[in-house]
């Protein structure tokens, strides 16, 4: 399962193909839908938000570093993480990226530049300036992509992070995945604005809100945004406006979500939209798309087999790797 999608620094100005974006979204969807199917329900999925992950992560370069939140599977998969090792981690197996010590909520993959999945809401925002400071101080070319939700934007540290990044000219691409929900509270109940990008502007950070369910639009915006951070060496704020189509976690039945709002967003499903566009524009045939689906399914089946047959960690692992 060698799915290294990380692009090298040399082709960083090249856009991902519409087909590659579609396949990434399909893989994210297939991976996340597989989890409840095999009985894993204490997991936060990004169903409906795949365009944000695929569009943004494909706009990053190999030397860039990523921090993200509890809803990170899409970001990891788009970065080229092996779904088998991700699933193994979710299952607490020793072959997981963090040897089973993370579980679903904190997967990091140093080799892919994924520094952090924080399940402390806002944790990614608090570490991002330091990661960017390393890039700046050690004169590394990479930028830092920091994914977080609309809920995290109501944490105090969000504001501390933006203010510091703006003042210190830190190369951070902030990506706010505004999916309208903060666990069991609608965003409307927590703030007066619809768009968190308006807050960023007040800190002196250039910002943009994009249709988070249109992968083409997200990718184009993210390429512009990443390029600005890379060349200007200062932060940029990209808000992907989208919707959380599943519960806060899979075990949650969404009974509290307004049916009309849900239906309106369901009509904007990013995978369906991209499939239709690609077929309409003649980039792929329906048959090509079917082949893509088969490929994705088989990747996920191998992942399930790999994770399922992997061993649990030795109990001696309980107290290792606490101190360096």
């Amino acid at each position, binding site marked *: 399962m060698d799915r290294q999608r990380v692009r090298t620094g040399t082709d960083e100005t090249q856009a991902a193909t519409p087909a590659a974006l579609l396949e990434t979204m399909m893989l994210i969807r297939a991976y996340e839908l597989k989890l409840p199917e095999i009985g894993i329900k204490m997991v936060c999925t990004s169903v409906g938000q795949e365009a944000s992950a695929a569009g943004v992560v494909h706009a990053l370069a190999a030397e860039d*570093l990523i*921090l993200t939140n509890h809803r990170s599977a899409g970001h990891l998969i788009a970065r080229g993480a092996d779904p088998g090792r991700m699933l193994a981690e979710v299952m607490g197996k020793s072959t*997981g*990226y*963090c*040897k*089973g*010590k*993370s579980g679903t909520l*904190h997967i*990091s*993959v*140093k080799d892919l530049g994924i*520094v*952090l999945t*924080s399940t*402390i809401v*806002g*944790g990614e*925002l*608090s*570490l*991002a*300036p*330091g*990661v*960017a*400071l*390393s*890039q700046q*101080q*050690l004169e590394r070319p990479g930028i830092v992509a920091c994914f977080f939700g609309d809920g995290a934007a109501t944490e*105090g*540290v969000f504001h*501390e*992070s933006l*203010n*510091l990044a703006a*003042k*210190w000219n830190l190369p951070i691409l902030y990506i706010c995945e505004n999916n309208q929900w903060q666990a069991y509270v609608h965003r409307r109940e927590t703030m007066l604005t619809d768009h968190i990008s308006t807050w960023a502007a007040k800190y002196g950070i250039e910002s943009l809100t994009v249709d988070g369910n249109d992968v083409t639009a997200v990718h184009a915006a993210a390429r512009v945004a990443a390029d600005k951070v890379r060349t200007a060496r200062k932060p940029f704020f990209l808000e992907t406006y989208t919707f959380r189509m599943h519960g806060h976690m899979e075990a949650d039945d969404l009974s509290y979500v307004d049916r009309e709002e849900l239906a309106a967003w369901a009509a904007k499903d990013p995978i369906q939209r991209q499939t239709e566009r690609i077929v309409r524009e003649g980039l792929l045939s329906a048959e090509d798309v079917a082949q893509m689906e088969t490929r994705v399914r088989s990747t996920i089946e191998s992942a399930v087999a790999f994770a399922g047959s992997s061993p649990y960690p030795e109990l001696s692992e309980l107290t*290792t*790797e*606490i*101190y*360096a």
Partner: protein
Amino acid sequence: MPNVSVQEAISQALTEEMRRDPRVLIFGEGVATKRYDMVKEFGAQRVRNTPLAEGIIAGTAAGAAATGLRPVVDLLFSPFLCFAMEEIVNSAGKLRYISGGQFSFPMVAMALTGAGWGVGAQHNQNNEAWFVHSPGLKVVMPSTPADFKGLLKAAIRDENPVLFFTDIALAFESGEIPAGGEIVPLGKAAVRREGTDVTLISYAKTVHSCMKAAERLAEREISAQVIDLRTLKPLDEETILNAARKTGRIIVVHEASRMCGVGAEVASIVAEKAFASLKAPVKRLTGPDAPAPASFPLEQAFVPQPDAIVEAAVQLVEYGQTVAVRNLPDVAVAK
């Protein structure tokens, strides 16, 4: 050996480590203003003032530590650590383990604490035990200029997050420091005074109270040993147990409050592993479970003083004479 203040010892440690390793940098509220000489030597990139936001200061340190720098952050007074608790405890302390060892967090968070300046409870709380209780962190609290320098250098070189507490009352104390700046390893206690009848175990300013008490006890022909823990995590269990086996009488002295404090841990270690050596119950002399007062006499009353230590030591020495206790032979250490 040159005589230097604790403040100066800290500055020397920072300067020497920043000269040695270009990855070391320091930031915090007013750091660049107060350490302007360091700005001149190392540049504004490595010595920075920050916004007034302890959470992001600590978080930035953790993020930088994970990705190649070795930050030192000055968080001013220990109660302000509450604003940085999330970043220190949940990120710096846990993410190495959670990541399966992929990342490490070589950083130092400094804070002032303790009675002495009458700053009151929102600038003074001996909360070091909170961090001792959190996985993945190390905690240092020195008592002499030489240790301030040597332990800070060791903390900066350590691959783990270290909380470095400066007892306010010691900040302007002076003492000798070996030229050349010797490293003092983390996790090693110091025997400050040898003795055979009773052991006084302490750290930070109350080490000095113990030394004074030991002198007075000597006048009464009680030989007191004084141990300075210096590092609270990792705790030097071996030195503690050796002391228990040697004198059989232990008094733990600290300014932090009693319940679940470092003294409770020391007493438990001794009870679990050197019970047979004890000639009397372990005694704790600590500050009260009260916010630190500002008024000078109240603040002094907060801190265990030499007289109280002397009294406790005399009680322990007399304990076997007034209460029937069975003295089991000490098999662990033949002395």
